[in-house]
């Protein structure tokens, strides 16, 4: 019995801890800890919706009211044109969905590490699990607010085209954009604890420079490419294309630029996070 155990021990891989070593098997570790990722996401979701009925209601009310206000202000008062003849409310809501997902993901991910300080100082696991799982919670909110879109579309008797099946692709882009920025900001947030005051401002500001309340087609042609430096532009355009249909069109050079910017932010976020991750337990 004892010898069998010993043989098993010898076959086991050796764990080596030394300065800077954590790099090597990081992504293998991330995979090994996938169950923790599921369960942390589940914890966040279940506590969020368990505590209050308001949790679900909030996910419904917020985008709905924003949609009403934007439709009235931009569509009725400013009389901005809608995309492809779709009702203004649908056009606004098709953009609000990814925007709300992006902004709440960014906010949640940025605060996630500080909020889980107790875990970080007491147990080892790849830290990237925490901000990523907090984005999953926002995804559930996204699904709930999606129900409103269905209702609004039913109200206007608006039939989506087959394009809607490509929606997950754009959702993935929104996920990538929020993860990249979220990782970057959460690392800074651990180090500079007053950084969190900057985040609501960024989110607020982003709402107005992204084409949420209006169509991106009203941007003058010569600034269009510059405008697409905002990664959410491609995501929102993509959402509108998928939901409203072929009558809207995607501005391809801008779309590719947006994708590139998103990709850049993901790499930057991961790099920053990885470089600071080792010191989280010491400074949090």
């Amino acid at each position, binding site marked *: 019995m004892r010898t069998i155990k*010993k043989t098993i021990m010898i076959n086991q891989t050796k764990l080596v801890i030394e300065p800077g070593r954590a790099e090597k098997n990081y992504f293998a570790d991330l995979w090994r800890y996938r169950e923790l990722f599921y369960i942390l996401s589940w914890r966040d979701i279940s506590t969020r919706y368990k*505590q209050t009925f308001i949790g679900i209601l909030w996910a419904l009310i917020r985008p709905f009211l924003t949609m009403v206000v934007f439709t009235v202000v931009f569509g009725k008062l400013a009389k901005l044109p809608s995309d492809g003849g779709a009702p203004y409310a649908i056009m606004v809501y098709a953009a609000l969905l990814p925007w709300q997902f992006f902004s709440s993901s960014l906010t949640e991910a940025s605060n996630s590490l500080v909020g889980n300080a107790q875990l970080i*100082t007491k*147990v080892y696991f790849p830290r990237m699990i925490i901000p990523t799982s907090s984005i999953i919670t926002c995804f559930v909110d996204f699904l709930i607010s999606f129900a409103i879109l269905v209702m609004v579309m039913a109200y206007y008797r608006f039939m989506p085209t087959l394009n809607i099946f490509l929606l997950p692709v754009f959702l993935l882009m929104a996920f990538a954009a929020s993860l990249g920025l979220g990782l970057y900001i959460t690392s800074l947030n*651990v*180090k*500079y*604890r*007053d950084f969190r005051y900057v985040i609501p401002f960024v989110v607020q500001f982003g709402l107005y420079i992204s084409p949420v309340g209006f169509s991106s087609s009203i941007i003058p042609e010569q600034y269009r490419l510059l405008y697409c430096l905002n990664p959410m532009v491609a995501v929102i355009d993509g959402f509108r294309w998928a939901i409203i249909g072929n009558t809207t069109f995607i501005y391809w050079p801008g779309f590719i630029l947006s994708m590139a910017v998103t990709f850049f932010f993901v790499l930057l976020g991961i790099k920053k996070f990885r470089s600071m991750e080792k010191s989280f337990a010491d400074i949090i």
Partner: protein
Amino acid sequence: MMACYKGFLIMSDVVIQSDGLGKAYTISHQHRERYTALRDVLANRVKKAWSRIRNPHYYDHDTVEEFWALKKVSFEIKQGERVGIIGRNGAGKSTLLKILSRITEPTTGRVEITGRVASLLEVGTGFHPELTGRENIFLNGAILGMSQAEIKKKFDEIVAFAEVEQFLDTPVKRYSSGMYVRLAFAVAAHLESEILLVDEVLAVGDAAFQKKCLGKMQDVSTQSDRTILFVSHNMTAIQSLCSKGILLKKGGIQKMGDIDTVVNDYFSHEFLCQLVNEWNLDTAPGNDAVRVKKVHMLPESEDPVINVTTPLKVTTEFWICQDSVTITSISMALKNIKGEYIFACVTECSCTKGLYSAAVEIPGNFLNDDTYTIDFYFLKEATVLFLHQDCLVFQVNDIPRVSTGYLGKWVGAVRPTLHWDCSRLADA
């Protein structure tokens, strides 16, 4: 040569091999806060830039100091060994466990670990008050590194150990603190890992449960040949659970070896409290009537460490400086560290001008393990002429208890060994 060396290590079952491990924290003198604020960083940059503009020879005064929580720590731990890590607060015990469990990375050195490591640095890490007991078992298990399948397999065992069957579907925020700790420890106790790192978790929970936990840890390590590293301030628990010890002092290894030797070493280095206090006539505490020359305490045994069995002798030497003063009685009062009086003991005398010595004996097997302070009262009838307060501080240590399985703190202000008579009266 190197490969051969490594092969040898595996053969001899070394599961943790640490070489020159060190961990430095930087302390910046300008920022005393725990974490930096962006506001301050920006403000400082502007301030420094401004100072440079005004004075090109400006020197940056913000010195950064390194504090080494661990320094050159090297040791080997073999499979199945139970090692107690002891030392004062700040000696580096927790930092060592944090490095071994990969929570923080070392600044220097290297550790090789063979086998799966589970660390229990706190009871109930990640418990969520809104979730039920059942949900928290799965959550906490996953956080400690168990797979869901593993938890499912052990679920009933965990629940039985924690004794919370009826409350499984109650949110843990409604649990009593005892139930909470029991559930948390139960999950941790069922971790299946080759190496278990435990930090001071027995400081919580009631005595009976502590005993159960220690018993569980003992079972686990003897039956399945697991390696345990155990940090605690409870020497009794450490001595009964561990076979080897590592004594840390200021980040370095002070002593390593057999647990009893290491614990004795710890006591004799750390707790030789104020057993002698001596003054000359100018600085002597006292007043016009009485001046104390010297107080001292001798353990009436060879061992320099005072434990609960050691008889003690406390002596005060004092001058009576004036002809008119007479002392009719001297009283010694013993207080515990909280300042509560344990007892007072008085002797009658008639001392006039001169130098005196008064000694009182405290028998062995009488005091409990605690830190005590001594007061001397010099009295003339009912009047206190001089109260010499807290003149000695000493620590009484516990001894390993073999016969009783109980390892928690012995209750009571004193622990006298009294005569018992236990006899059988009749067959039942």
